[in-house]
């Protein structure tokens, strides 16, 4: 099972990113957990500076905005 973390300080973009991953996973019937990380110390640990950023199984796969649906689909199907 893939574990996603969305890093960001809680603005709308971060919430939308969480929703996008969750809903895409539901649509593809892939089981995932999506966690939202707001703690600045944790975000710093991934050395991410532009949020929202997406971490998949502890690897930063995207940063600086809402990912596109195609990207999310690709992560889920990999």
């Amino acid at each position: 099972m893939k574990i996603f973390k969305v890093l960001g300080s809680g603005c709308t973009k971060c919430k939308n990113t969480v929703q996008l991953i969750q809903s895409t996973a539901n649509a593809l019937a892939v089981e995932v957990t999506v966690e939202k990380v707001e703690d600045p110390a944790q975000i710093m640990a991934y050395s991410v500076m532009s949020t929202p950023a997406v971490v998949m199984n502890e690897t930063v796969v995207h940063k600086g905005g809402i990912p596109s649906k195609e990207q999310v689909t690709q992560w889920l199907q990999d």
Partner: protein
Amino acid sequence: MFQIFTDLASWLVYDLMGLSSATKLGDALHFFVEDVSKIFVLLLVMIYLIALMRASINVEKVRDFLAGRNRGVSYLLASGFGAITPFCSCSSIPVFLGFTSAGIPVGITMAFLITSPLINEVAVLLLLSLLGWKLTLAYVVVGMLVGILGGLFLDSIRAERWLQSFAAKALQNGRAEQTVSTDSTSLKLTFKQRHNFAKAEALEIFGRVWKWVIIGVGLGAALHGFVPNGWIEEHLGAGEWWSVPAAVLVGIPLYSNATGVIPVMESLITNGLPIGTALAFCMSTVAASFPEFILLKQVMQWRLLATLFAMLLVSFTMMGWILNSLLFLL
């Protein structure tokens, strides 16, 4: 070049709706239609063009560029990068920590973070189109000065003492290691990638700011049409020394971004508000916002936040007074 928007407004308001330009309503509505149409078109076109050019700049690059550089020029560079690098205000904490953990002094980081919301492509475009190049230049110079001097001041009082402990630790580690991260490989973008970035950027920014434009221009139009001529000049003119700090104090709780405030500023200035007072109002609305300060609390102790806040207040007030007194000399 902008005449077409004046004509559009005249046609719509005077010809189509049959209002007279001598009435207050007609005048205010004309101002509203002209500014909203002009700003909307400019925003979409110009953000797209600017985003095409800066598609490959990002905060990671700025950090790597600033890390380990000599202090003197860094304040200027940080503030300059703040002016041209946009980032969502909800990213300010990760940016702050990213800079800090690369060992960049707090003052230099803050020079970047103060300048960034003050000067951005949208603000500069609006200023240019509504208020002309002289004021735009003054705005950019003052905005950068506030960032640079603010940064110098914070370092001179050793502001890093008042960081939250984990941020202070990150700074120390960063200094000891002097690492320059390697994840920001300079990527070459194809035109198609640039186009996609620019298109997304233009639509995203437009989607975020269009309501501010309506509100800002609406307020500006109301001021323009309904405040009696000469009233502002008489009551809030440059002779009234207190008008500048008052403008700053009024500006702070009004959280807005530059897009909403600049049309109000245009209207205030054409109605006789001195430029220093108008700029002080505009900058305090844009730069010192409560939501941002609450975010910064995560990495700074109260003392540093209060210092930062006071510093911005004082610098906007001083800037307003200086500009107003220069106007007297002219």
